[in-house]
């Protein structure tokens, strides 16, 4: 009976369509990465990573750009991770324990914010951080703007991950009189960890590839940043500038894109490895 069903025409069509879709995604990915690698590897070398940018980035390397990128992302995560996790916990707490109108409104606002174009966040960051809070065009202002930008996405994904923690674990913990902190650390976090990590890495990817919001807030000078209140150019801004404004900058732009992809890959692998190790320690397995 099952065989007959699986051989029906709509089933076959669905199977073919889904296979084609999967192949299409794979082809796009392969085309993108091979194209980038072919044009970028020629320029890529250890000195490209180590040297400072020269002649608007056409020559030299990207060391100062990497420093600025790291600093902007660190500020962004330092602010957004605890705030988004706290907010997600509040939402989950409300949704499990009571019917809360505040939670629904907050979720609607977050969904709306998550859909806003990044350039709007750039304008917001420039007005608030650069001008009103007098941070100027700085790494700090850029990091804070990015934090605001990825916060709605992070809260949404963290909230979804926490929602998937089975009620039976929470009821079991409550029935044992376990404290909220211990329940959170030993039961909720390890259970929600895959979802939390996926959310963190997705939002990190969005922050690391952001250009528009940073053009308005952290600036695009290629000099070495000396403090968090100094202006700095991040990798996506560097790639954009080389590709659009600098004649002969295409090779450096491709090489920088390869570095950006490699950085994201390394962060992904390292984060998943660390999360796995932490989960193993907490679960005692």
């Amino acid at each position: 009976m099952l065989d007959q069903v699986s051989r029906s025409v709509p089933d076959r069509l669905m199977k073919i369509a889904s296979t084609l879709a999967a192949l299409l995604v794979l082809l796009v990915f392969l085309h993108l990465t091979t194209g980038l690698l072919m044009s970028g590897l020629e320029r890529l070398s250890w000195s490209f990573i180590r040297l400072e940018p020269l002649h608007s980035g056409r020559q030299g390397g990207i060391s100062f750009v990497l420093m600025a990128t790291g600093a902007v992302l660190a500020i962004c995560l330092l602010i957004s991770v605890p705030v988004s996790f706290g907010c997600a916990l509040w939402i989950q707490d409300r949704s499990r324990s009571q019917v809360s109108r505040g939670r629904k409104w907050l979720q609607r606002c977050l969904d709306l914010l998550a859909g806003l174009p990044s350039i709007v966040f750039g304008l917001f960051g420039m007005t608030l951080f650069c001008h009103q809070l007098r941070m100027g065009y700085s790494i700090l202002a850029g990091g804070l703007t990015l934090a605001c930008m990825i916060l709605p996405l992070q809260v949404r994904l963290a909230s979804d991950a926490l929602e998937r923690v089975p009620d039976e674990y929470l009821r079991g913990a409550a029935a044992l009189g376990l404290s909220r902190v211990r329940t959170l650390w030993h039961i909720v976090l390890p259970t929600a960890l895959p979802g939390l990590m996926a959310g963190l890495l997705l939002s990190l990817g969005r922050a690391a590839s952001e250009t528009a919001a940073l053009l308005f807030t952290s600036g695009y000078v290629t000099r070495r940043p000396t403090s968090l209140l100094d202006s700095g150019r991040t990798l996506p801004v560097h790639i954009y500038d080389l590709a659009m404004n600098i004649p002969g900058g295409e090779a450096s732009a491709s090489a920088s894109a390869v570095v950006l992809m490699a950085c994201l890959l390394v962060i992904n692998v390292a984060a998943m490895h660390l999360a796995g190790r932490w989960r193993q320690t907490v679960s005692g397995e």
Partner: protein
Amino acid sequence: MTGTAQHDPASDRPGSASTETITAGCGLTTGMLQVAHLSVSYGQRKVLRDVNLTIPPRQITAIMGSSGVGKSTFLTALNRLTDLEPRCRLEGQILLDGCNTLDPDCDLQALRRRVGMVFQRPNPFPLSIRRNLLLPMRDAGLNASEAEIRMEQVLRETGLWTEVADRLNQSALTLSGGQQQRLCLARAMALSPEILLCDEPCSALDPMSSQTVEELLTKLSRTVTIVIVTHNLAQARRLADQAAVFWLRNGTGCIIDSGPADRLFEQPVNPDLEAWFAGRVG
């Protein structure tokens, strides 16, 4: 529980100095529960009305009745797990050794350590077997070595020690259903509660595992007050010293008969109950 020379297991309880007193002025620990005029509502809907029941210490009290009459709600009211339900409201009194657990000042953590619970479906945490048992004990204030000793003790009591001694660091989720339920029993017993609430603990188990759990409950009832919700009349007959039957009256659950199990099964005073025991109503 009348002789003064009788050993009181409460004296072995972990973290006794800080956690036993659930509200000020309640120091005696016998494991006696008295439910007086208990009503439970979810929003506007009343699910239990005017429930009165005395649960004697160190006996097995079976809570019976058809589906949807509020048996599990009653059970979760005893350790205030109903507080986790949105818009749930409790009225009346539940006296644990004379102390009202529905008092707003009641320390819920201390209450739930004194009134343990085992659920219908085994719910071990996604941690190692060892960590499942140590976690509540460490949280209750036992030091590492005390907790390790107690862990072995409860695993032996539940007959799990020989089965898991060599794989304590493996995930508890790798155990069979019956083993998981016994682990949950061991986890609840690790805190040496005076009362153990069991919400149909055998309903998700095969007959062999059910038998093991039943034998375990009978053994535990020597030292712990056990309140068990069951659909299984044969199981209630086998296990219970006392019994109470819940019934729907005007859409709300209430007790229609309670008392010693032998009397209840042999001479049911209520015609509805007699018909139910005879299988004439569901």
